[in-house]
Structures are given as C-alpha cells and as structure tokens.
C-alpha cells in the first residue's frame, strides 16, 4: 500500500473541531454531547422564522486561541450563508466564514522539524445529526431519516492546511500535533471517535519534479489517526497507479472504507454543489480588539512543542526510546504527570517510563489526577510500593478513583521500610545456606530463588529490584 516509484503525493488537510463552549455559536442552547435528542434546541438553531443569531463571545475567544497557537494573524472577519438543502440544517444554510476568516496564515511545526503552513482557521456552525433508518432492499418509501438538532449550531473551527504534506506519516503527525494543540488551548477535547475532531484529506499525486499539482480527491470518513494514515497511503497508491496506466484522476469526494481498506467514490462531478455564498445580513462584522487579542495570547498555556522541550531537558541526554516516550506522553496529554513527579523528587527516567508505559496503557489514563499519579510514583521512588504494586494502585485509581494511599492500604500494600526488608532478606539467606553458598560462588540464577522467598515472606510487598540489590551487597561483603 504505497505510492508508485517516480511519483510523489501532495496532501492538504481540513480539520473541523467542535469548540468546548458552554453554549452554541449563535444561541444560548447548551453545547453538550450525549443529551437526549432535541432537548438543546431553540428558535435560532431550529431555523424558525423571525429568529436572529447572536454570536457567542466564548466561541470567538477559543477561535482566537487556536489562531494564536498556530501563529495566524487574527483579523476582522465576517460571516456568510452557505446555502444547501439537507435536513441536518433546518435553516437550509450554514453560517460560516468565507472570504474574511478570523485567522489567516500560520505554521505548524511537527516534532520531526518539518513545517506545514496553515492557510486559515475560521468559525462556522455544526449541523444536526441524522440517523438513517430502513435496511437496503426495503421498499423505496419505507426508508427515512431521523434528525436530532442538539448538534445544530454547535461552534466549529475549520483549520485548513496548505498542500505542504508529502507523506501519509506526515499527515498523521500533523493531525496528531494539531489535536494536541487544540486540547492544550482548551478549545477542543480532540476526540476523533466521537466526531469532535474530524479530518478530511485532499490528496493528489504528480511525477517527482513536476511543478504543477495533479487533480485532487477529497477523502472523508477518517475516524482515527490510523485511518487517516492508511487512507492517504491508499489514495496516493490508487492515483499513482491510475496515472501510470495512462488514466486521469477525476476530481471527486471519496469515502474511506475502514474494513475494506479502500476509498470509494461518493459523489460525481455532475452533482457538485453550488453553495451561493452571500453575506449573512443578520450579523455585523467581528472585530476583535487589540487588548482582547493580547489577553488571549498572554493566557495561552504551554503548547506541545514547548512541553516536549521541557521533558527532554529534564532527561538531560535522552535515548531514542525516551524521545519516543516524550512524544507519546505529550500526544496523550499526560506529560504533566511526568514533570510534576520530577518536581516532587521522582527520578526523571523512572517517571517518564512509568507514565509512558504503565499509565498510558490504562484505559482512561487521561482521567487520572496528576497529583494522584505523582503520589504513587513518589511512593514507589521511596520504596513504599513495589513496581507491581504501583501499577495495581494506578489501575485502581482509574477504575474507582479515591486516595492513592488509602487504595494501597486497602490492597494490603503496607509500607515496607528498608529495615524490615533487610531483616527479611537476612532471614531468607539464613534459611538456605547451601543455595546462598552457590549464589556467592557466582550462580546468579539463584537470585530469583531468593527474591521469590522474600516476596513470599512479605506477601509480595517487596520491590524485586531492591531485593536483588540487597542480595548483591551481602554477597560482596
């Protein structure tokens, strides 16, 4: 699944992100995922006659935060009506920004050092959710769709990249980095599976060295970073094979079929939409003033790139696998656990490894409180919990919540201080004099035998590494 030799791909991404506001973009209805159908609706978002849109300050501020984080210019902007007939939009038009978007120009630097230019990041409203009923094969008239307008009017920002992306892996890296930025700014929860972040990919191919762009196809239905990468790879392969065989790429929208691993055509050119954009007469131009823009910039939290730099600096001279771990904890948004643990005295390499391996593997890791994780890692660092016990307490925290010390106690992970561990090791060594002699003569395999007995005596509360260290120091005496 890869592009033919002699061809290169040119990819641009359009990312739609729902904003984490309290209310919708143009009305005071709650912006809430998972409410009962049609409970967050009013005359404005139902498109009832005589209703008027009023812009949400919170949505504008989040759009400005996104623009600032991407290095865009935040400009005076205006709204247009994008007209089309589809039951997900009761007004029969979507209010969007057209020729004067709020954020223009910008750059996203990826972890590998490459950069992708941002063309624009504009505000618009989301549509309602349609559910199609009726299996295929039923009589024509029996098929119908059900519409829930809770999502209609929820604020979105659409971020459009320049066609600067040259590989499927880079497309994935761009979407991952953008998602981390959206989460960091508090603009979005970045959940692709729930549809709060949606990615469309514009893919074209050309012969290496050609200056002109090939005809592009837009790929939709990319529900995860993995689908994005697979779909871009597949589409570039399809187009390069088509062109190499003397065919021509038709400009069209294609749907990614995750199961089949292919893209399929959705819509022919004849059906191309004509949206008849015109200025929204019910909204005045949006003019964010300088003090507001300055405040948004000043309040912008640390972005993923800066957070990676911080972690790498803590490690001093990170190994390649530690670099990967840094990338992954920042991508998962759980890097604050590492930095906080390190400030509480936990060894940086241990903190990174625990968070990147044990914590990241937990289902719901991002719901863990940073302080709780720091407590567990500190307890482990102080020898109060073994590595295995620390893992168990973290799992308990995700599952039940609560106080980590309490959870450790309830599990019977009593504090095993250094002196009682020493006493137990002495006791075990004394009980097995023959094995001890062989160990002292260099039979290292016997270390596990002693660890096993110490574990048995301490009901698993000893730290295996501490026991081995204790054995080694006794042998060298």
């Amino acid at each position, binding site marked *: 699944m890869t592009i033919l030799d002699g061809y290169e791909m040119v990819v641009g991404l359009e990312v739609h992100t729902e904003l984490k*506001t*309290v*209310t919708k973009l143009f*009305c*005071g*209805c*709650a912006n809430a995922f998972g409410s*009962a*159908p*049609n*409970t967050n*609706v*009013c*005359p404005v*978002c*139902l498109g009832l006659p005589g209703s008027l849109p*009023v*812009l*949400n*300050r*919170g*949505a*504008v501020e989040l759009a400005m935060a996104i623009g600032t984080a991407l290095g865009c210019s935040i400009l005076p902007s*205006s709204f247009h009506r994008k*007209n*089309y*007939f*589809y*039951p*997900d939009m009761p007004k029969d038009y979507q209010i969007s920004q057209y020729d004067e978007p709020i954020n223009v120009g910008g750059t996203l630097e990826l972890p590998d050092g490459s950069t992708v230019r941002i063309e624009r990041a504009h505000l618009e409203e989301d*549509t309602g959710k*349609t*559910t*199609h*009923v*009726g299996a295929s094969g039923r009589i*024509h*008239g029996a*098929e*119908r*769709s*059900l*519409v*829930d*307008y809770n999502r209609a009017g929820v604020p979105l920002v659409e971020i459009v990249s320049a066609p600067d992306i040259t590989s499927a892996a880079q497309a994935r890296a761009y979407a991952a980095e953008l998602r981390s930025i959206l989460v960091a700014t508090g603009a979005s929860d970045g959940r692709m599976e729930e549809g709060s972040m949606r990615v469309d990919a514009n893919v074209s191919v050309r012969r290496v060295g050609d200056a002109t762009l090939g005809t592009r196809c837009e790929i939709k239905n990319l529900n995860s970073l993995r689908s994005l990468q697979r779909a871009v790879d597949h589409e570039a392969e399809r187009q390069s094979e088509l062109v190499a065989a003397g065919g021509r790429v038709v400009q069209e*929208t294609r*749907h990614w079929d995750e199961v089949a691993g292919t893209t399929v055509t*959705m*819509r022919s050119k004849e*059906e191309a*939409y*004509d*949206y*008849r954009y015109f*200025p929204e007469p019910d*909204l*005045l*131009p*949006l*003019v964010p003033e300088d003090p507001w823009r300055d405040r948004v910039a000043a309040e912008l939290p640390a972005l993923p790139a800066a957070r990676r730099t911080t972690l790498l600096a803590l490690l001093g001279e990170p190994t390649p696998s530690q670099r990967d771990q840094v990338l992954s904890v920042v991508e998962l948004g759980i890097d604050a656990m590492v930095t906080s643990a390190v400030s509480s005295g936990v060894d940086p390499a241990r903190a990174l490894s625990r968070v990147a391996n044990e914590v990241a593997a937990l289902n719901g890791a991002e719901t863990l409180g940073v302080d709780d994780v720091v407590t567990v890692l500190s307890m482990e660092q102080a020898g109060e919990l073994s590595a295995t016990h620390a893992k168990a307490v973290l799992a308990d925290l995700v599952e039940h919540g609560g106080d980590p010390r309490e959870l450790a106690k309830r599990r019977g992970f009593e504090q095993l201080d250094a002196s009682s561990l020493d006493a137990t090791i002495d006791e075990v060594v004394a009980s097995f004099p023959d094995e001890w002699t062989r160990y002292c003569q260099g039979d290292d395999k016997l270390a596990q035998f002693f660890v096993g007995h110490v574990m048995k005596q301490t009901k698993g509360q000893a730290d295996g590494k501490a026991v081995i260290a204790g054995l080694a120091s006794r042998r060298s005496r």
Partner: protein
Amino acid sequence: MTSLSREDVAHVAKLARLALSDEDLERYTDQLRAVLDHARDLEAFDFESTAPTAHPFAAAAYLREDVVVEGLDRDEVLNQAPAVEDDRFCVPQIIGDAP
C-alpha cells in the same frame, strides 16, 4: 458583463428547489434582469478609492456571553413536526450524501 439568461434563472430555481413553469421562468427572468440592471447603475461611480464594505453599518458584532439560556420544550417542538420517531424529526428518504 453579460445580462442574466433564462438558463441562469432556471439553474438558481433548481438550486432553490423551485418548480417554475415556462411562463414563470420568462417573467422572473425579466424581473431579475431589471433588478440586476438597476444594480449595474453603481458602475457609474468611481470606487477606486473606496474600501470594500461587508456591512452598511459602521458597527462591530455584539457578542453574547457564553451562558445557557433555556430553549424550547421538546414536546412543543416535536408537535410542530409533520412526522416524529424516537424523539427525532422524521424526514423522507434523503438522496445523496451531506455536502
């Protein structure tokens, strides 16, 4: 600039889901042509030194605070719909994908 054609009007009518008879099409083409010709009177002015205007008022958008305002009762809303199923608006079969 070429004048509005009958085909232009037919195209716009199709996009707006309006079924126009030949007679309607004739009449609206004449009327819309007159409207556009009137707008063309603006070409008599010199706009070289005028900045593009998005809105006639010299005012910026009023912004609402991000606070929930109670909307409509669901039963009241769904009672207005021709068909309802599972607390959702029920619409006839949709041809084609969402734009």
